[in-house]
């Protein structure tokens, strides 16, 4: 029986049988679906990647206003295309940790203040120039100069000096930071020849593919880079991205076989889409969270009891079920979840109208609370606001909802108005998440969280190289945000991708972003 099963698995892995058919036949042989899936996965690996063919991706989040300049990348298309032609020094490993790309290895001084990155030798850019540590230096300079428009500017701010020595690229920091490699996985920091200072949007890098046709917001075609240094990446000859922002059109393109994979399958229809025999819907948990944010320094939210009342008055499970349709997990009023490296589980806060009522009465505030929301703060935000309104009314708290226009929401409402709905994509480490949005001096401290003890802990944790101690520090900080902060975090959303069974090699991940942290087109292959 084992032999027969293995044969079937290999057939399925080679694409001569659909996954569903294989599962059915395996079940007939008395194998559970779970066992059969594992078998299939190992058989697929044994069959190995197949070279050649074209992989087409229908992608949401691109516009004809996009530029190829990685410094300006701000959506899924720009991030995906950047990873075709370019590479960062280090990348997030899908299973957690660091995946070495153009940095072969790195070392930190004992105080985590001086970092040395050894640059991979013998790698050439697609214009024929050889990669040197000077190119890395120039790239980092472009993203950190006073004049920089880079989205990575915030990350580069803590750097005191940088230099290139032979094949080494050395960074000296103002303050110790044990997380520097994680910060350098930022998707803007693609290494360009001469730092891309002459022509930032040239699309020339060391990546596995070379761009052949570029129509921003419409279509991108890239062909395999014959000189690429890493054989494990880039199996298809050609990769074609088609920007399809409309949800229904994107799903239809996958269903009709025009594309092999799509990102952001709408949660509402994901289960329906998964039913098709030629499509697998893949869910990846991530650090992104849908939130309600209150300014801790503005009335009535200046009173922590009002904030606690809001936190007890939200039904998290209902939000995950109805807003995310189950594709996500419940939040705990801290921006940190299990996708962070040094995560500690805190006691879960649950919906408790009595406690909400108690805190509200204790605060002495009896007016209504104004919540601003718009459709683009996160998908389904107005619905989530209505659910919040209902769950609060059970506690006798009156929530008023004000719909704001999508246009200008991020510049006029978010980070300006005292209470609104919002979205955070998350960061690779606790340190960068906390420094971006919870440090009292952060530009995007969108909850106006001002806690001296928290700030001190944040700086101390950066310099702490003992992992156990750091983990405890981050747990303490999460607890502070959870019990005193202005963040009401009901849910973490998962990335939902749709993948055709015509391609193989999907890797389940617990870190990074959609489409396998944008690497799915390069890690997967067309079945023969």
């Amino acid at each position, binding site marked *: 029986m084992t032999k027969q099963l293995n044969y079937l698995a290999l057939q399925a892995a080679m694409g001569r049988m659909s996954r569903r058919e294989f599962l059915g036949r395996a079940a007939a042989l008395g194998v559970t679906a779970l066992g059969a899936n594992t078998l299939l996965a190992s058989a697929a690996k044994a069959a190995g990647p197949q070279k050649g063919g074209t992989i087409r991706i229908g992608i949401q989040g691109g516009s004809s206003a996009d530029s190829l300049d990685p410094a300006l990348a701000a959506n899924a298309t720009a991030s995906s295309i950047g990873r075709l032609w370019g590479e960062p020094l280090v990348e997030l490993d899908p299973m957690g940790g660091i995946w070495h790309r153009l940095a072969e290895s790195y070392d930190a001084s004992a105080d985590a203040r001086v970092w040395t990155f050894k640059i991979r030798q013998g790698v050439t850019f697609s214009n024929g120039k050889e990669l040197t540590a000077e190119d890395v230096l120039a790239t980092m300079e472009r993203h950190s100069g006073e004049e920089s428009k880079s989205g990575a500017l915030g990350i580069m701010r803590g750097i005191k000096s940088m230099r290139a020595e032979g094949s080494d690229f050395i960074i000296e920091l103002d303050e110790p930071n044990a997380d520097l490699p994680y910060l350098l996985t930022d998707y803007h920091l693609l290494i360009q020849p001469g730092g891309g200072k002459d022509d930032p949007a040239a699309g020339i890098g060391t990546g596995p593919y070379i761009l052949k046709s570029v129509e921003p917001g*419409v279509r991108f075609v890239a062909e395999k880079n014959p000189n690429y240094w890493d054989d494990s990446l880039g199996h298809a000859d050609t990769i074609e991205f088609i920007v399809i922002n*409309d949800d229904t059109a994107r799903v239809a393109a996958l269903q009709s076989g025009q594309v092999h994979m799509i990102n952001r399958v709408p949660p509402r229809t994901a289960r329906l889409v998964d039913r098709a025999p030629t499509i697998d819907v893949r869910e990846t948990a991530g650090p992104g969270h849908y939130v309600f944010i209150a300014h801790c320094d503005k009335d009535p939210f200046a009173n922590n009891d009002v904030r606690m009342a809001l936190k007890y008055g939200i039904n998290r499970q209902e939000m995950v079920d109805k807003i995310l349709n189950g594709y996500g997990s419940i939040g705990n009023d801290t921006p940190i979840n299990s996708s962070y490296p040094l995560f500690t589980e805190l006691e879960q806060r649950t919906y408790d109208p009595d406690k909400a009522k108690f805190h509200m009465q204790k605060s002495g505030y009896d007016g209504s609370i104004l919540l601003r929301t718009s459709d683009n703060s996160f998908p389904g935000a107005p619905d989530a606001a209505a659910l919040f309104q209902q769950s609060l009314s059970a506690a006798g708290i009156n929530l008023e909802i004000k719909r704001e226009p999508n246009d200008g929401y*991020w*510049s006029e409402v978010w980070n300006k108005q005292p209470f609104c709905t919002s979205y955070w994509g998350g960061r690779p480490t606790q340190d960068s998440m906390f420094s971006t949005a919870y440090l009292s001096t952060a530009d995007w401290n969108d909850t106006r969280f001002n806690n001296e003890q928290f700030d001190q802990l944040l700086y101390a944790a950066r310099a702490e190289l003992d992992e156990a101690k750091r983990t405890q520090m981050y747990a303490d900080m999460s607890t502070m945000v959870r019990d005193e902060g202005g963040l009401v975090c009901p849910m973490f959303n998962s990335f939902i991708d749709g993948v055709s069974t015509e391609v193989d090699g999907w890797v389940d991940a617990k870190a990074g972003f959609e489409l396998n942290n944008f690497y799915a087109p390069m890690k997967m292959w067309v079945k023969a």
Partner: protein
Amino acid sequence: MAPILKLVAQRVALSLLLLLMVSVLIFAGTMILPGDVAQSILGQSATPEALANLRADLGLNDPPVTRYFQWLWGALHGDLGTALTSGQDITTAIGSRLSNTMFLAFWAAAISVPLAIFLGLLAVRYQNRWPDKLISAFTLTSISIPEFLIGYVLMYLLAVKLRWFPSVAMINDSMSLGQKLNSIALPVTVLTLVVLAQMMRMTRAAILNVMQSAYIETAELKGLTMFKIIWRHAFPNSISPIVNVVMLNLAYLVVGVVVIEVVFVYPGMGQYLVDHVSKRDVPVVQACGLIFAAVYIGLNMVADIVSILANPRLRHPK
């Protein structure tokens, strides 16, 4: 012939004046859009320093009047500026988008206009009998359903289920004409269904109006066949309202197909405009607005002139 030329010249001059006024409106309109270009370009994750740097870079600190005249001067010379967001030359970028839009509009018009007029004539010929009622029912149904819904239904049936046509109407230069036509089959069908009813109803109404005239009765008494009467006598005399409604629909096919472009992922002007509105890329929005206005005014001007030329009383004033 002189009075005619004068009339036509007047129309053209008026149209140009109108276009100039529209350009002021477009410019003023884009000035009062809420939000900030720099913020939209860099997204939620921008730092204040990066925002300030970008704002200065884009020249957002100059006074609006100066910017209007610079823009108008450039536009008159065919230079629409560069896009703030991507740094591309707008004239080049719009060129390919506009030709895509024109390609789609052309084929939609090539099918829908003759079809609508033919159906209109047919409806008059069989007035109040079943072909007339069937045509009216069908066209009124198709115009009453929102166009995106027709799009999705056709996409589901013809692309996902039957796989006859692609659901994504992507065209590019390396495709042959046949491939392109296959690619745009679905959007052309939807657009045809959307514009058919109005033109067909107007044709029918205009001809029926003329059919009450005494000379039609004369023609009937002469023993001409019904279809010949309609084609030779009624149609030429009702051409002016028909041309008007045809031109309005042609204008719609060029400037109003944003929804269809989004649904079928067609790389036309509408999608281009929407992308840049949401990014506050003002020069592109202004350029698109100007082109759309020019198309609208131009087609209406053609309709006016055709009406004048088709009317002997205007052609030979006493």
